[in-house]
C-alpha cells in the first residue's frame, strides 16, 4: 500500500492525551517579512500558553526542532522561527548558518521583529491563553533576554548560557553583537537563567554580574548554575551534554513556564 492510498486513520488528528502534531509553516516576521517556522502543538482543545524557541547560531536544526516538540509535549504551543529564512531559504541548516555568519549574523532589530511575529502567531492560534514565553540557548540565550527587554508582551524568558548579555564584546568580531547593558532596565518579563560553572562565556563572574544588575533594576529573576557543567550542557548530540544539568534544567524550565504561562484566574 502506498502512502497516497493509505486510509486516513479514524479520528485523525489524534486528540488522545499526549498526542501532538508538528509542522513547518510560514509566519510574518520583522517588518511583515514572510519567514519559515517550525510549529508543534498539543492535540485537543485545552487552553495553553505558547513558547517561542530561538535557535542557536548553528541554525534551525533537528535538535532545536526536537526542543519545539518537547514544549508541545509539555502542553504548550511552541514555534521556532527560522532566523535565516531571508539569507538562505530552503538551505540545509548548517549551510544557512554559514551564509548568515558570512553576512554578519542576525541584526538585533530583525531578531526582535521575528520573535514578535512568532509570539503574535502563537496568540492567534485556537485555544491560546495569550501567554507567551521565549527561550534560547547560547546566542539564542542572549537573544531571549534581548526580546524580553525590547518587547513588552513577553510573559517569561529563559536564557540558557547566553554570552554577551553582560561583559565586553571583543573588537573585530565582524558580527553584529553588543552586550545588553543598555537594555536590561527594560526587561519586562521574569527571567530564568541556566548556566554551567565550567562555562567561560558567560563566566560565573558574568552570571553574578548579571544577577547584581537585575537586582539593582528590581527585576524578577531566578538563576541556577550547575556544578561541573560547561557551555552547551543541554545539547544531547554534543560532547558537552551533561545529563544531571540538562534534566534539572528541563525541570526548572517546566516549573517556570508552568508558573508564568498559565491562564490567569
Amino acid at each position: 500500500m502506498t502512502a497516497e492510498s493509505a486510509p486516513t486513520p479514524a479520528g485523525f488528528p489524534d486528540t488522545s492525551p499526549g498526542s501532538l502534531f508538528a509542522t513547518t509553516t510560514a509566519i510574518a516576521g520583522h517588518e511583515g517579512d514572510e519567514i519559515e517556522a517550525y510549529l508543534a502543538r498539543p492535540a485537543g482543545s485545552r487552553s495553553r500558553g505558547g513558547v517561542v524557541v530561538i535557535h542557536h547560531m548553528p541554525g534551525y536544526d533537528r535538535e532545536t526542532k526536537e526542543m519545539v516538540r518537547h514544549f508541545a509535549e509539555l502542553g504548550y504551543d511552541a514555534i521556532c522561527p527560522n532566523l535565516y529564512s531571508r539569507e538562505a531559504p530552503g538551505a540545509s541548516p548548517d549551510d544557512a548558518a554559514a551564509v548568515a555568519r558570512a553576512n554578519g549574523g542576525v541584526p538585533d532589530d530583525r531578531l526582535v521583529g521575528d520573535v514578535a511575529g512568532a509570539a503574535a502567531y502563537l496568540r492567534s492560534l485556537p485555544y491560546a491563553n495569550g501567554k507567551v514565553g521565549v527561550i534560547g540557548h547560547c546566542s539564542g540565550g542572549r537573544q531571549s533576554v534581548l526580546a524580553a527587554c525590547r518587547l513588552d508582551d513577553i510573559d517569561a524568558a529563559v536564557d540558557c548560557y547566553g554570552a554577551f548579555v553582560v561583559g565586553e564584546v571583543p573588537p573585530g568580531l565582524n558580527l553584529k553583537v553588543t552586550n545588553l547593558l543598555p537594555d536590561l532596565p527594560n526587561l519586562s518579563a521574569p527571567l530564568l537563567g541556566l548556566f554551567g560553572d565550567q562555562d567561560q562565556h558567560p563566566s560565573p563572574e558574568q552570571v553574578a554580574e548579571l544577577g547584581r544588575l537585575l537586582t539593582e533594576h528590581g527585576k524578577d529573576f531566578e538563576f541556577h548554575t550547575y556544578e561541573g557543567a560547561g557551555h552547551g550542557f543541554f545539547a544531547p548530540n554534543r560532547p558537552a551534554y551533561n545529563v544531571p544539568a540538562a534534566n534539572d534544567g528541563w525541570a526548572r524550565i517546566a516549573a517556570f513556564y508552568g508558573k508564568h504561562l498559565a491562564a490567569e484566574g
Partner: protein
Amino acid sequence: MCTYTTIKDVIDGSAKGAGGEWFHVSDITVYFDHPVHAMAEHTLNIDFTDPSRGPSARVAVELTADSAVRLVEAIQAALAAVPVEMRV
C-alpha cells in the same frame, strides 16, 4: 560559547562539494566556534564557498585547534618547498 569571531577573505580555487561536483570557490569564512559535526566544544571552522551559487555551494571543515595549527604549518611547508616562480 558562540565566539562570534568571523574572518572573511576572497580566494581563487576549486573545491569538491556534496554530490561529488567540483566548483569554483571565491570566498572563505574562518571562525573558531561550535562545530556541527566534530566532537569538540569548539573548532576552527573554514567554509570555502561561492556565494553566487547559493548556500549549498560550500565545502566545510571543522578542525581542533591543534589540527588547525598543523594544517597551517603543512600549507606553509608545502608552499616553502617550491620555487616562488611556480606560484602562478
